[in-house]
């Protein structure tokens, strides 16, 4: 059971996406886990064959519990080890691997599930998950009657509520934000950025394209914030065990407000390298999956920095709270038209309030200021984004 957030202690397995004997490769989704942040897809990071499924659907197990085993192709040292699932465990990071190593002995000794040939065939016809059935046949085998009985109940595997539990999510946000404010000495900076050039370019860009290909201003913000991190890499990464650990890429956690309350910030990986159209698509996809459930574990654990954009209906200025163990959060307020001095004249210009909340243990205000200036500069040349 991967840790899919700073304060996750346990998760409920709601769906297996693989079955015994399936070949999986790194990046495949093998299961769906219900967490405080909703249903999250669990990926594997090894290649191999699923040789044992240890946790049945519906079971709630602590973080670190072995969910399944994957026999690797051989060269993988982790082959016989439990599945290396989404690896970043913010609290406490060093302890996580030990937990994973310690667990296999404790894991129940599950043997091969016995299913009679006809029961297996029937279950396949009914799309029934055999792993949740109890067998009444010879040697505890699952037989036709067990499958038919399960099919009669109509709700195939015991239905664990899949989707968002907003009360649970509120608890998770409370825990993460309390920890942030307790542990992270924030400093805050802000700047106002002229968006005249950016929006004019965007209008031109979008005019030639069908609605589906059009790009929102938020994408420009995201790309600019990501690119500017090249100049200030100390804002991109984690504060762990008393030291800064740089991120292995610019993976921007994109804050998404959920209907009915709640907030989630899944990663857009390598946001600095993706072209605008791809970022737009990624953003759409994340919003859609965050709201319906279906985020992957790695998307929740991999952000190296967070960007929040309050959008059209938000406040003019946002000053964020860092998501631990990250060290910075960039905020974009609502785009507003304000009087702006241009070459000694006053013009109405679209502007945005840009803010930075950063961890004073890692960086100082001077560096933060340079970072905001870099974003502002990049937004003046939108065609280069």
């Amino acid at each position, binding site marked *: 059971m991967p840790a899919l957030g700073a304060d996750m202690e346990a998760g409920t397995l709601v769906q297996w996406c693989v079955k015994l004997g399936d070949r999986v490769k790194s990046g495949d989704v093998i299961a769906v886990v219900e967490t405080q942040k909703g249903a999250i897809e669990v990926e594997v990071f090894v290649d191999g064959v699923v040789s044992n499924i240890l946790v049945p659907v519906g079971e709630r197990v602590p973080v670190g519990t072995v969910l399944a085993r994957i026999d690797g192709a051989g060269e993988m040292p982790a082959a016989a080890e439990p599945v290396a699932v989404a690896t970043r465990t913010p609290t406490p990071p060093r302890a996580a691997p030990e937990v994973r190593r310690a667990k296999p002995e404790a894991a129940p000794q599950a043997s091969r599930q016995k299913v*009679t*040939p*006809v*029961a297996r*065939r029937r279950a396949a016809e009914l799309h029934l998950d055999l792993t949740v059935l109890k067998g*009444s*046949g*010879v*040697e*505890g*085998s699952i*037989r*036709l*009657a067990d499958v038919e009985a399960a099919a009669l109940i109509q709700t195939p595997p015991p239905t664990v509520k899949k989707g968002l539990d907003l009360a649970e999510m509120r608890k998770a946000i409370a825990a993460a934000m309390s920890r942030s404010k307790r542990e992270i000495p924030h400093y805050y900076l802000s700047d106002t950025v002229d968006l005249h050039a950016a929006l004019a370019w965007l209008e031109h860009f979008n005019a030639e394209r069908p609605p589906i290909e059009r790009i929102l201003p938020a994408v420009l913000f995201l790309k600019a914030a990501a690119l500017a991190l090249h100049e200030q890499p100390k804002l991109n990464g984690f504060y762990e065990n008393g030291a800064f650990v740089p991120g292995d890429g610019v993976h921007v956690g994109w804050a998404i407000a959920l209907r009915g309350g709640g907030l989630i910030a899944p990663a857009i990986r390598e946001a600095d390298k993706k072209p605008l159209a791809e970022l737009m698509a990624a953003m759409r996809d994340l919003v859609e999956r965050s709201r319906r459930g279906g985020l992957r574990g790695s998307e929740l654990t991999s952000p190296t920095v967070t960007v929040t954009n309050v959008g059209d209906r938000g406040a003019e200025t946002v000053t964020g709270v860092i998501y631990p163990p990250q060290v910075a959060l960039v905020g974009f307020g609502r785009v507003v038209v304000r009087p702006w001095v241009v070459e000694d004249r006053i013009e109405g210009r679209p502007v945005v309030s840009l803010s930075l909340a950063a961890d004073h243990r890692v960086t100082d205000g001077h560096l933060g200021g340079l970072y905001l200036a870099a974003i502002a500069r990049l937004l003046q040349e939108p065609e280069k984004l």
Partner: protein
Amino acid sequence: MASQEPPSPLRMTYREACKQALRQALAADPRVFLMGEDIGGYGGCYAVTKGLLEEFGGERIRDTPLSESAFVGAGIGAAMVGMRPIVEIMTVNFSLLALDQILNNAVTIPYMSGGQFAVPLVIRMATGGGRRVAAQHSHSLEGWYAHIPGLRILTPATIEDARFMLIEALKDPNPTIIFEHVMLYNMEGELDPAVASVDISAARVRRAGADVSLVTYGGSLFKTLGAAEQLSKEGIDAEVVDLRVLRPLDARTILASVTKTRRCVIVDEGWRSGSLSAEIGMRIAEEAFFELDAPLRRVCGREVPMPYAAHLEDACLPQAESIVLAARELVRPS
């Protein structure tokens, strides 16, 4: 008026049915004659041929020297030149002395002569345990004979089959062996007067059921039917398939039954290893694997020479209790 009444059923023993079959064959075809040890003056070791010497004379009811190889070979020769010999061997254990004649001549000559010679020979022999006649007279080796291509192997278990299989066997231009289980001779039953012949190619479902197929033949049939009766009291609906013909095996009937019930116990008095039950189980595994809802099971004879002591002999043979146990474990595992 009386002619419109259905004829009343005929009550007789299995032994009598065998004798009536022989009488019918002898009366119907002058080429038919019997050979065997003590079948004439003594009337046969199981008294099947008693009275036939008086009725048909020494030319057609011939006592032979105690040499299975010689008189089975003589039967093969007679069949090759157009006669219809019916050879009796006292028990299947003794038939091993004639195995060379059966395999290397009876079965092989039609093939090696390119069809110039047919061998329309019928061999009858007693088989099986239960009569306390110890380890040289009690085995069930019909599974061995069922291994041999070119033979037809019949195992009449009912009085009807005992009465009518023989005449059909005589029509077959190839050698046929009829195995009569020693424990069936004294069994009494009624012949349906409406039946005048039976096939010698198909298995038959003797009792229809839905939960488990009990596949058996010969001497184990009535034990199996008894087991099915006992199972029905427990709410387990067993189907009983009587193979009747061990070769060529009617796999279709077996597979249809197992496909319906999805569970199968094979009951075979023969030794388990390399047995007919093994062949049937393998056919099911090959042809109906995906229909199975439980492992295949067998109730077979214990793999020892048949003991003489009654309780030991009983313990070595499939019994209704052991069949019930095996079937119950498949349907309602404890």
